């Protein structure tokens, strides 16, 4: 997301240059000197106003208000005024359930991000090499992206990993002599991770495969020809040409995967029935589920707001660090 912002600003000069026939406003548009007159202003305001007003209300005002709420005692109210300083942050960060949820989401992220990355890259390399029916296989791997987390959770919980001897996972396990297990309830070993990881993999691997496929298609053929002339084959081509050329795509995929994993909610909520109406026996809870229960269940908007800021800070922090390490995915071409 940051990368696209920085790279877009470099483009106008390179595209707007060629062969200009100077003609009033058209000329100023290209000369880089911002000047469009009164009619330009009117049009600019009319075209940007809806988005600006919308972002103003639902992002800027929302964040500002919520920040003040995070400093208030706001139980059952969204009115300001009952200032309590940093108490909400203190309460939240000393809450064992919230700390546990942070540890668990870090574990989940540390697991799901590299696995999804590797599988989607592998699928892309595989599909890219298929000559006949490539589009068909691309569709096959992409189509799960049409399914919602709710519907997938339903199938995973009630059919694939339902813990009955006739459940799919237990049936397949039975062929290899394994005893039926309660996938979602078992905590030692924590088999629910398998349920969580396979579900998310199935849903999102196709999406990232398409990103990698686009990256693969953008690699110039000449690079391979040149490398082949130098005697490179197979594995050398992969590590010497393909993977380095996919660097920008990889950075983008890693960032998107991280942001998505850290905000996991849907499948955790639906698999473990851990919403406000739930029984609260979920073996694993994400920070977002915890926040949902705090803000919507107990209607504590002060702590809910504080949680939103803690998590935003974490996500932005990690994204920036990742960006620093990978140079924002710049250079390219």
């Amino acid at each position: 997301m940051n990368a696209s912002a920085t790279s877009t600003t470099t483009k106008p000069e390179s595209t707007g240059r060629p062969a200009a026939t100077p003609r009033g406003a058209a000329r100023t548009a290209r000369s880089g000197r911002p000047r469009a007159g009164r009619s330009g202003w009117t049009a600019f305001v009319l075209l940007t106003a809806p988005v600006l007003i919308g972002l103003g209300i639902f992002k800027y005002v929302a964040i500002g208000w919520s920040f003040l709420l995070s400093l208030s005692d706001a139980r059952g109210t969204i009115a300001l005024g009952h200032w309590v300083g940093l108490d909400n942050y203190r309460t939240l960060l000393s809450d064992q359930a919230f700390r546990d949820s942070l540890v668990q989401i870090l574990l989940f992220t540390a697991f799901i991000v590299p696995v999804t990355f590797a599988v989607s890259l592998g699928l892309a390399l595989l599909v890219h090499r298929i000559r006949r029916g490539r589009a068909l296989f691309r569709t096959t791997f992409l189509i799960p992206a049409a399914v919602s987390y709710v519907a997938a959770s339903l199938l995973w919980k009630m059919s694939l990993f339902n813990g009955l001897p006739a459940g799919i996972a237990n049936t397949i396990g039975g062929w290899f002599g394994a005893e039926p297990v309660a996938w979602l309830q078992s905590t030692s070993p924590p088999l629910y991770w398998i349920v969580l990881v396979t579900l998310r993999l199935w849903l999102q691997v196709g999406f990232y495969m398409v990103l990698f496929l686009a990256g693969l298609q953008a690699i110039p053929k000449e690079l391979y020809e040149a490398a082949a002339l130098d005697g490179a084959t197979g594995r050398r081509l992969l590590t010497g040409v393909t993977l380095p050329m996919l660097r920008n795509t990889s950075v983008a995929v890693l960032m998107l995967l991280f942001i998505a994993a850290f905000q996991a909610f849907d499948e955790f909520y639906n698999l473990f029935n851990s919403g406000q109406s739930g029984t609260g026996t979920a073996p694993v809870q994400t920070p977002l589920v915890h926040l949902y229960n705090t803000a919507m269940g107990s209607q504590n908007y002060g702590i809910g707001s504080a949680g939103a800021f803690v998590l935003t800070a974490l996500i932005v922090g990690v994204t920036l660090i990742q960006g620093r390490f990978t140079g924002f995915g710049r250079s390219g071409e």
Partner: protein
Amino acid sequence: MTTLPALARTARLGARGLLVGLLTAAFLAPFYLMLRNSLMDSRSLTAPEWTWWPSTMHFENFTALFDDPAVSMGPALGNSLLIAAVTAPVSTLLASAAGYALARIPVPGRGVVLALVVATLMIPGSVTFVPTFVVVGSMGGVNTLWGIVVPGLFNPFAVLLFRNFYLQFPSEIEDAGRLDGLGWLGLYGRIALPSSGAMLASLGALSFIDSWNSFLWPLVIGQDPSAWTAQIALSTFLTSQTINLPGLFAGAVVTITPLVVMFLVAQRYIVEGIATSGLKG
């Protein structure tokens, strides 16, 4: 005459074919299961012996879904359709308009406006449901469809993608339009917008999918059954005390089918949309 390298290549091709076949089966199996389960009765669904396909198909699972007053799947599907059908075109058009202005109209202060839009990209979407709830709640948006729709209409990322797109738009076409006496709005409405069809379709399709499948925000804001989306109805169904298994799967099939059809029909645009929105370099 098969030489050793040729044999090795055949073996490699065979292995790859086997891998692709296994993967295909694994990726499609959940769809098969969902469909099979939705057509069975609950007794055979929980029976210890495996059935590949029900001998009698129980289509009444689907009709029962719409007759069940406790779940309100029909109205929920209607809500979802309305929400996605409004969100996709409106959010895409608004982003296109703002993206055009930011790319082409050279007014002073344009950079500041762009920075204000870009800054909101840093705010992760789901995590900030409490701030959004505070604002929408204060405006009386709880349990309303507009409360679900409106916060999602302003997509800063789509604005950037459109800005990028219009920056590369050939200015010669615009010059011609200007000779015909078009102002900025005319240039956008008559020339730029009609040439953005593929881009509008791609981002619109992605927005439709996101909107249809979104869960957390409708859950937060639409607590009353009258404002339930299909996902919320399905989730309520799943977490309710008495579970009607075949009905549950029938509900899943019904909520998935529109998007699967859309994926098959508009696949080109969806793939393009994903590639565009993931393209950072």
